[in-house]
C-alpha cells in the first residue's frame, strides 16, 4: 500500500513515504516510527514529498511519534509537505506544534543548528 524507504545519515534516520496516508495505510507508518522510537533514535526526518493525501489518522500517527520521541529527548522533523497535506496540518491547528520544513536541507540545517 505505502512505499516506505528509510536510510541512516550519521545518527539521524530519513524516512521517505510514497502514497496516500489514510486509515488503511497509517498503521504501516506507525510501525516504522515506533520501531525507531523504541530504539531511541535521536532524530527522525519524515520526507512527505510523495504523499499527496493525509487524513487525521496519519496526523495522529505523527503526533504520537512526536510526543513519544520528546520523552527521551528525540527530535521529529517533517518536510516537503504537498498542498493538501499542509492543509490538514493547518485545519488540525498542528502546523505550529510540528517542526515543518520546506525540504531536507532546511530540516537538516535546523537540526544541526540545535546541536
Amino acid at each position, binding site marked *: 500500500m505505502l512505499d516506505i524507504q528509510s536510510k541512516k545519515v550519521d545518527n539521524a534516520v530519513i524516512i521517505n513515504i510514497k502514497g496516500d496516508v489514510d*486509515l488503511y495505510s497509517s498503521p504501516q507508518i506507525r510501525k516504522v516510527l515506533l520501531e525507531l522510537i523504541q530504539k531511541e533514535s535521536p532524530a527522525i526526518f519524515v520526507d512527505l514529498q510523495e504523499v499527496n*493525501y493525509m*487524513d487525521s489518522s496519519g496526523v495522529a500517527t505523527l503526533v504520537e511519534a512526536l510526543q513519544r520521541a520528546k520523552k527521551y529527548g528525540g527530535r521529529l522533523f517533517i518536510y516537503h509537505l504537498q498542498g493538501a497535506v499542509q492543509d490538514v496540518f493547518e485545519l488540525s491547528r498542528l502546523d505550529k506544534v510540528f517542526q515543518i520544513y520546506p525540504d531536507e536541507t532546511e530540516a537538516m540545517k535546523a537540526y544541526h543548528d540545535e546541536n
Partner: protein
Amino acid sequence: MPETLEFMIPAEPKYLKINRLSIKLLCELIGFSTVESNNITLAIDEACSNVIRHAYNGPSKEPIHIKCNIYGNKIEFLIRDFGRKANVDQIKSRELDEIRPGGLGVHLIKTVMDEVMYDTNFEKGNQLKLIKHFKGRK
C-alpha cells in the same frame, strides 16, 4: 431536482481511496477550486473512516453508501451506514489545544463543511448529511 451520483463500497479501509478519487473529481467538475475539492474529499473520507471505526467497530463487509446531490448553490452528501446506532452527544472533537493523537476527524468535518447533521432515526444504522455551498452562491 438535484443531479445525483452514488458510490457504495464495503466498509474496508482499502476501498476508501476509490471514494476519494470520485469525490475529488466530482467537486472539481462542478466548479470547486482544488483546495476546496481537497478539503471536501478529506471531510467525506473522515466521515467514512468514522463509519468503519465507530459504526461498524472495524472493517466490515457491510456497505458505506454515499449519495451526492448537486444543487445550483450547493452539494449535499448523504453518508449512510447500517451499523451500530451512534450516540450523537458523543460525536465531538477533542479540545484542540490538548495535543494528543486522534480526536481530529469530527473537527475536520465541521471545519470544512458548511452544514453537518447526524440522523439516527433510521431503523438500522445512521446517516450523516454534509453540505457545502458554492462560494458566493449561498
